[in-house]
């Protein structure tokens, strides 16, 4: 499977992450989205006329919508999710991308936008996510659709974790923080720039002073 990829794209990262979590190998082809805008060029439009990333090519199959790519990769794995609730979150991920991703592109890459409106819109979606995670937790679920992670979580997570890049801080969202921590601790989890390694999972090298402190 070939992934046409841009290293700083949250949606491309969601695809790389799901592949890593489900043990699938992707052959990534770097597309010069920034600064080159290569995805708008003729060569890339031959692959995806819409001129967007990510694009997944698997034999005869070409997919260019992030949610569809996630569904495709999740088929037959524990991350697969169907039904209206899954669709609701996959569709919501576009709102997260537009608002939080828009703020991020504005703050990071000088992309024009109404930054206050983007951040306010992003905070609204974070409120919706925080409340949903609270309600899931009351039902004994650590993830959006149950007690194991699915593509619903993977579609939303990158935009949320990268929100600080666009000036939306995550300090005041306790349920979101705990949910992100659970995702980051999954076996096979990979990072992207802006999301640091969860170093706590690794033991302290060398003589450990830990116990002696108390």
């Amino acid at each position, binding site marked *: 499977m070939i992934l046409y990829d841009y290293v*700083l794209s949250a949606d491309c990262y969601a695809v790389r992450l799901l592949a890593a979590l489900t043990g699938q190998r992707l052959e990534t082809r770097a597309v010069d989205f920034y600064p080159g805008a290569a995805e708008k060029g003729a060569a890339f439009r031959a692959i995806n006329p819409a001129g967007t990333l990510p694009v997944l090519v698997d034999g005869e199959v070409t997919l260019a919508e992030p949610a569809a790519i996630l569904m495709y990769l999740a088929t037959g794995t524990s991350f697969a999710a169907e039904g209206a609730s899954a669709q609701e979150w996959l569709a919501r991920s576009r709102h997260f991308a537009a608002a939080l991703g828009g703020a991020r592109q504005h703050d990071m890459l000088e992309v024009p936008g109404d930054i206050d409106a983007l951040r306010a819109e992003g905070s609204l979606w974070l409120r919706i996510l925080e409340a949903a995670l609270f309600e899931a937790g009351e039902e004994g679920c650590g993830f959006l659709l149950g007690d194991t992670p699915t593509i619903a979580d993977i579609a939303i997570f990158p935009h949320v974790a990268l929100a600080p890049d666009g000036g939306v801080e995550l300090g005041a969202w306790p349920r979101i923080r705990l949910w992100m921590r659970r995702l980051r601790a999954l076996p096979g989890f990979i990072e992207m720039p802006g999301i640091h390694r969860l170093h706590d999972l690794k033991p302290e090298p060398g003589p450990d002073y830990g116990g002696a402190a108390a």
Partner: protein
Amino acid sequence: MTRDKRDEWYPVAIAAMLPPARGRDTLLLGEPIRVRAGDSGPQVETAEGRALPVTIAYGHVWTCLGTPGDLFPIPEAAQPGRRLVDVGMVRVKCSPLRAVENFLDIAHFPFVHTDILGSEPHTEVYRYDVRIRDEVDEVWATKVRFYQPQAAKSAEGGIETEYMYRVPHPTCSVLYKTSPPMPGEWDVIALFVQPLTEELCDVWPWMALYDDASSMAEMIQFQQMIFLQDRSILENQIPRRLPLDPGMESPTRADLTSIAYRRWLKRRGYTYGAQLVAA
């Protein structure tokens, strides 16, 4: 020797990707400027329409608000066989001086660039040499060594990498590191910083690499990945400005380059983006 900050050259665009007719409205040292493609090359002007001096070097358009001197040389830029990489601008909410100082630092590699430029338990920073070369008025750190799991796009597996760091300009730094495919040569990675304000900057990384295997997009994205890992650090340092008061932060021997850089800034009187007294 001191020099007015307005007399320095600063990067404001990639020469090969000039903003179209409307131009790029941006800030330099807090002053609004516009960069655009003119009939005979790039033009930069102030809000009042005053044309500013322009020079093109190392892939970038540089300008100056005052009376410019010579831009620092990077002789390697002209060496045949190197591929010149315009990485693109990344905006960071931090002092331009903090951005440069972070670039000079290796001790953060295992924690910030985990499994790429460093990894635990290989955290030790060995002794290295630092001095201010008065003849050229530059800070140089040499014999810097660090264990790296994947030093460059072209690197396979871990190697002990050697570095030299050079600060020829208050907001620019040039780093020379072992070239994985050409062990006798140095790859050149530079960080050119455009100070928008004292607490906001546009960072323009640029490279001159020996690498025939990677695509241009791959080389760009490797460097973007590295720099974006730094960005989330830079936006979260307190205070946002670089403290020049030695009592405010606690350096160790690993920080000799940053100590020399701060001293050099003081000596040159370059305090734009610096915090002079403890808050």
